[in-house]
Each structure stands twice: as C-alpha cells, then as structure tokens.
C-alpha cells in the first residue's frame, strides 16, 4: 500500500523532471506570486501573535523570513538561475518556516481555525516552490572552482559588507523576542546559509579571507569591539557574550588537542575547573588556605600553569594509548577530578562549591561596575566581555601561529599517521604531550576568568557533559580551524539562551545535533581545508589554493 504510493510519487517526480526545464519557471512564478501575496495577507485571526500576524499588507515577523527566501523562486521564474541544490535548500527552509509558524499560530490561538488565509496561501506557494525545484534537472556542471580575483577595492568592500552583515544579523537575532519567531528565524537562516553555500559563496569568502586576511581580521575585531555599544546599556547579552568568550577560549585550547593533534579528550573540562578553583582560592576572593590575594594577572598565569602541569602529569602516562582508549581515560580523569573536588571539601567547599567570588579589580577599575565610554554607558559585563575578547584574541593568535609552524605540522602528521610521523623523526609522545599541555594551559587560563564571570565555582560545572559541550563547540565550528571554535561556542551558548522556552529539550537537541553533524557535516561550519578533504573524498585535481604557511588552515 505505502510502497505502491511511494512508487507512484517517484514516477510522477520522474515525469515531472523530464518536463522540468519547461515547467519549472512557470511553477516558480506561480509560487513566487502566491508567497508574496500570502505574506501580505493576515496569517492569524487573532491579534497578539508575535509579528503582528493579524495585519494585512504588513509582512512582519516570520513573514519577513519567508519573503527573504522568496528571491530563489524569482530567479528561476525569470530563467536567470537553475541551481537545483541551492534552490531546494531555500524553498525547503521557506516551507519549514511556514509550517512551523502555522503550528505556532494554531497552538497559541487554540486550533487551526485561527490560522488565517495568508498562511494557507503562502503554504500553497511554498509547496509549489518546492515542486518547481524538484522538477529541475540536477545541477550538472559544478560551479567554477576558482573564483575570479576582483579589483582590490571591490574585494575590500565585499569583506566590509560581509562583516557588517554578520554583525547586523547577530544584533537583529538577539533582538527577536518571541521564541516561535526565533525558531522561524533559525530555520530561514539555516536554509539561506545552505543555499548560499551551495552557490559557492562561502568558498569565495574563504578565498577572499585568505587574500585579505589583515583587513578581515581588523574588521572582525572592530565588529567585536562595537558589539557592547549596540546593547543600550543592557547587560543581558553582554553576560552571554562574556560566557561565549570564556568557553571559546577553552574550546580553542581543546581544538589544539582534538583538531590538530587528533587526540580526543573527554575530560577537558577538568583543566578548566582547575583554573576556576585556582582563581577562587588565590584570587581576590582569597578563599584559599593562605587567605592571600594575588593580582589578577598573576592568577591567570598561576591557573594556566597549574592546569598545564596537571595536564602534563595526566598526559605523560596515558598519551601512549591509542585514540579511543585515550578518550575514555581522559573521561575517567575528568570524573575523578569531579569526585575529588566533591569529596575532599576542606577548601573546595565540597558539593556546594565556592560562591560570592567578587568582581575583578585592577587598580581602581572595578569590572563589576558600568562605565561610560564615548558618552555611551556600557553595562558592567562589558568589562568582562572586553577582557574575554583580549583573551580569545590571544588564544587565537597562539593557535594560528602554532598551527602554521613546524609544531603544527608535526601534530597534523601524528594525527594522520603516527608511525609515519615517528619515522620522520617526530617524537610522537612528547608532541602529543605538548598538545595536551597547551590545551590544558589555555583551559586553565579561561577557567580563572570563568570563576569571576560566574561569581562561583562548583563541582557540577565541571562534569562530563561540559567536556562534551566544549567538544561539540569544536566540532560544530570546525575541527582544526581558528574561528571554528569561537563560532561553535557562540552558537551553543547564545541559541539556547534565545530558546529558553524549550530549555527542557536543550540536551536532547544537543545530543541529536552531534549525531546529525557527524553524519552530514563532520567538518563543521568553518571547515579547515584539510578536514574538508578528509571527510569528503574529493576527486583528483584539487590543489589547495591557500599558500602553505598561511596563518589559517
């Protein structure tokens, strides 16, 4: 029964495709008209649904996202483009936004009767749109591998535009209040990004970045510095951003271990914990046995050193193990750290941890207080945000420099083939230990800041799940790349913050994310060129375009 039905669908899709070239533009045109009309009609019969959904001729809320994806249809309608893969991604996302919004309206309004005509018209348009792209024949020839080199000024403008657009998108996203609308936004954004990626935009941007590295870095730094000024004195997102910074710095450290040296460390959070406890015990909280206070810079260095030392002590006996054994042993050490801190509570506070860690002070500068810069008041967390920015920049710098050196090459060689690496004269054990120690050092440094940002440390912040969280940030962003870990950490921290309404499902989604990621995009969002080739066997003639020794792999 079902099989027969599926067969039928398959044959009609086949037939559709054989007429596709002729049929698609008309289908797409109809779909485009329906979508435009539909988004200008009311979607809900009741007022109060986010995005003024009951108003006509006012496409706000999720309707904007639908409209933003509609150009994909228009391009096919006017026979400008026939990119099936990209178009399919865009229209499927469009359909998903419509369906998700209809469900949300029906849920809020108490039934499908409260979904108004505009939504149904748009849904019909979305379905036609998907059909239009299904009907197209396959893409045929791939996009040109090498994008043209444009005049310097044009390229520079493109970089400026890309960075500005990212910042604007970020600020907009943080401003979307309603969870249902935010889900719509994520769906549209995801679909849009996949579509643009399939058009080769990001490959081009990557190449552009390689050519205009200095400019891009300056602009990104400028965008990051500007961010607190967009927050109107509110501290909410600055606190989140400071947290992103803390975890990003740690994630980059983990990226040295996992992404470069290929060692899976599942107890990495323990090093972070060591740093946090060092800060709580010897920082200005002075909770340690000596009740002493160290200046903050000394605390960062101390936390980093102690953590690095622990890393080396743990690594020395275990790094001879094969990869997956190592993973489990590190997990074991992570759990042992947790148990020890929990059990021996003379100084650690046991399960309650240590709380009331005061804000940082440097001279007369109190990190907890708001400050006014250029006439704009910045909330207290802006100070931590900027501190983190410096730390992350520093860590990124270290990562990039190591990656591009003899040391980075040795790590990658070990990851690729340990025996061959040793035949090249690389002392594999000591290089693995070095990666492990550097990872632990960076985690310890960011842990010291974490203690102040969170104002407390407790053993339950340093459990296996947190290690997996950092690992997920690395994997999601892209193993072995500099910006990858930052992007991964940002997404994994900011998105759940927006989706508090679904916070109960956070871990479930997180687990599924790992599975889906490994299945469909194991190289992450910002893949290192190397990794991308590793996961997707490319065919013969693909020279890497970046010159060797460029800072970013």
């Amino acid at each position, binding site marked *: 029964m079902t099989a027969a039905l599926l067969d039928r669908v398959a044959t009609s899709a086949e037939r559709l495709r054989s007429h596709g070239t002729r049929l698609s533009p008309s289908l797409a045109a109809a779909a485009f008209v329906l979508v435009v009309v539909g988004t200008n009609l009311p979607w809900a019969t009741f007022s109060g649904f986010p995005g003024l959904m009951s108003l006509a001729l006012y496409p706000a809320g999720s309707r904007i996202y639908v409209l933003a994806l509609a150009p994909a249809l228009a391009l096919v309608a006017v026979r400008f483009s026939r990119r099936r893969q990209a178009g399919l991604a865009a229209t499927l996302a469009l359909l998903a936004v419509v369906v998700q919004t209809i469900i949300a309206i029906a849920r809020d309004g108490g039934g499908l009767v409260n979904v108004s005509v505009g939504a149904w018209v748009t849904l019909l348009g979305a379905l036609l749109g998907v059909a239009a792209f299904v009907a197209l024949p396959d893409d045929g020839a791939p996009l040109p591998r090498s994008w043209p080199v444009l005049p310097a000024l044009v390229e520079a403008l493109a970089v400026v535009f890309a960075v500005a657009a990212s910042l604007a998108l970020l600020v907009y996203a943080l401003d979307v209040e309603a969870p249902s609308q935010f889900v719509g936004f994520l769906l549209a954004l995801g679909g849009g990004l996949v579509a643009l990626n399939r058009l080769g935009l990001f490959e081009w941007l990557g190449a552009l970045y390689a050519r205009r590295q200095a400019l891009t870095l300056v602009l990104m730094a400028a965008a990051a510095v500007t961010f607190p000024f967009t927050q109107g004195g509110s501290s909410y997102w600055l606190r989140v951003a400071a947290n992103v910074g803390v975890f990003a710095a740690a994630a980059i450290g983990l990226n040295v271990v996992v992404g470069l040296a290929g060692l899976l460390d599942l107890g990495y959070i323990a090093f972070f914990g060591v740093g946090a406890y060092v800060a709580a015990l010897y920082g200005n909280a002075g909770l340690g046995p000596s009740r002493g206070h160290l200046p903050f810079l000394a605390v960062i260095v101390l936390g980093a050193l102690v953590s690095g030392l622990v890393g080396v002590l743990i690594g020395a006996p275990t790094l001879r193990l094969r990869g997956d054994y190592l993973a489990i042993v590190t997990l074991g050490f992570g759990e042992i750290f947790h148990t020890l801190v929990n059990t021996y509570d003379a100084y650690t506070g046991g399960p309650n941890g240590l709380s009331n860690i005061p804000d940082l002070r440097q001279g007369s500068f109190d990190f907890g207080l708001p400050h006014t810069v250029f006439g704009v008041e910045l909330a207290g967390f802006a100070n931590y945000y900027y501190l983190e920015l410096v730390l992350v920049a520093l860590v990124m*710098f*270290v990562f990039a*420099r*190591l990656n*591009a*050196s*003899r*040391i*980075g*090459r*040795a790590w*990658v*060689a070990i990851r*690729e*083939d340990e*025996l*061959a*690496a*040793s*035949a*090249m*004269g*690389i*002392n*594999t054990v000591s290089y693995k230990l*070095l990666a492990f120690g*550097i990872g632990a050092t960076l985690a310890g440094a960011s842990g010291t800041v974490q203690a102040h940002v969170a104002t407390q440390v407790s053993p339950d912040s340093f459990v296996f799940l947190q290690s997996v969280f950092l690992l997920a940030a690395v994997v999601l962003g892209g193993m072995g790349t500099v910006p990858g870990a930052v992007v991964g950490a940002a997404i994994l921290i900011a998105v759940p913050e927006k989706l508090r309404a679904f916070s109960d499902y956070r871990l479930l989604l997180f687990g599924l994310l790992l599975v889906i990621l490994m299945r469909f995009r194991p190289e992450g969002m910002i893949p290192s060129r*190397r*990794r991308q*080739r*590793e996961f997707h066997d*490319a065919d*013969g*003639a*693909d*020279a*890497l*375009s970046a010159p*060797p*020794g460029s800072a970013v792999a």
Partner: protein
Amino acid sequence: MPLLEAQGVTKRFGGLQAVSHVDLTVEEGEIVGVIGPNGAGKTTFFNCLTGMETPTSGRITFRGAPLPSRPDRVTVAGVARTFQNIRLFHNMTVLENVLVGRHTRNRTGVLAAIGRGPRYRREERDALDTARELLQFVGLSPLAEHLAKNLNYGDQRRLEIARALATDPGLLLLDEPTAGMNPNETAAAVDLVRAVQARGVSVVLIEHDMRFVFGLCDRVAVLVQGEKLVEGTPQEVQSDERVIAAYLGRP
C-alpha cells in the same frame, strides 16, 4: 668504518624466530639489496634497523654508534625509511609532507613559533627551500600543492622518498620501492635510486623484483627463513645454487 653494521641480529616473536643471527654491513655510498621469499623476515629485519622493533639480541651500529631503539631517534641519527604499504600524510599537501620531513633538522620551539623571531623565519625559509629542491629532485614540483592522497601510485612512492630524504639521512632504507609499479615506473625508480646514491646517501632496499635488484645493487644479501643464506655481488648471488633452490624449491 662502515656506515651501518648489523651483527647477529635476532628477533623472536613468542616461539617464532623471525630473524636469526643476520649480519649486514653497508659501506658509505653503497646500494645494498636484501631479497628473499615471502615471510623470510626481510621486513622484520628492516624494522630492527629503523627502531620499530627492538632486536631480541644482536648489535646494530650506525656511524660507529649504537643505533637508538626508537624510530624517531633512528631518524635523527640519520637513517630514514619508506614503507612497503605507502604511508604518506594523506590530507597534507605534497609540499607539507616534505616539510614534515625537515622536522628533526629544525629547532623552532613553541615560543619561537608564536613569536616568529628571526630563527623561525630562517628555519621556515630553509625548510621550504629544501623541500622545493627535493620535490624538484623527484620530479613532483608541479604537484606541490596537491593533496598527497590524490597522487598516483608511482608519484606517491616518489613523494615518500622525497619526504625521507628531507630528514638528511646518511642511509635510506627502501621497503619494496617498486611493488605495484609498471615497467616504465620501475625503470624510473632505478634512475631515482641511482640519483639518491649520487647525492651521497647510501641505500638498502628490500625487493622482490630480481631484475631491479641485480641491475641496481652493489651487493645483495639473501634472507631465507630468517637467516642470511648468501651475500655477495649480484653475479655471485645469481649463480649461487642455494639461492636458486630457495626460490625455485629444491628438486
């Protein structure tokens, strides 16, 4: 003083005597072949010479000093090798593969790599120069930016040799360098090994291809069932009845 001297090298795995009491001497500038039927212990003997296995007993010296017992130290000492089943760093470029070979000859540490001081820059430049020169030498310059795994078989073998030469070896051990090659590629391999010799690097090679070995080597040793049966010039070995018997079976 011979370059490499192995005396009474024996390797046992449990009850199995894979190599027993093998002596081998390599003089500066020589090409020496080690042949023998499958399972004769050639690769195990090779592994002993490269620190990948520790001999159960016996003595190996290189340039008069005892050979270290770890592969990376052996390479540092000046013995490089290739593998029977090619082991390149597949997802690195051809050039990067050779650069990894320069590893031991440079000293850049963590701080120097982060700070990019004059030493780092000098060493990176030297490494790049050497690597480019070696790629030129083996004829892979046009493919420098390709991924190693995308090279064809013969080129992968060449790359492995370039990578090994990048470690500045005094002695290069080739484990079946012509396995899987067609006659044209084999002929090119003969030239390449000669060219390696001309660079002042001695070569020991394990091979199955008799014609290749006898046409190329100054001296040939025959291993059978873990023991050295004969050693001598290609002519001597070719006409030795024991060798013929070992290969063709006793009548």
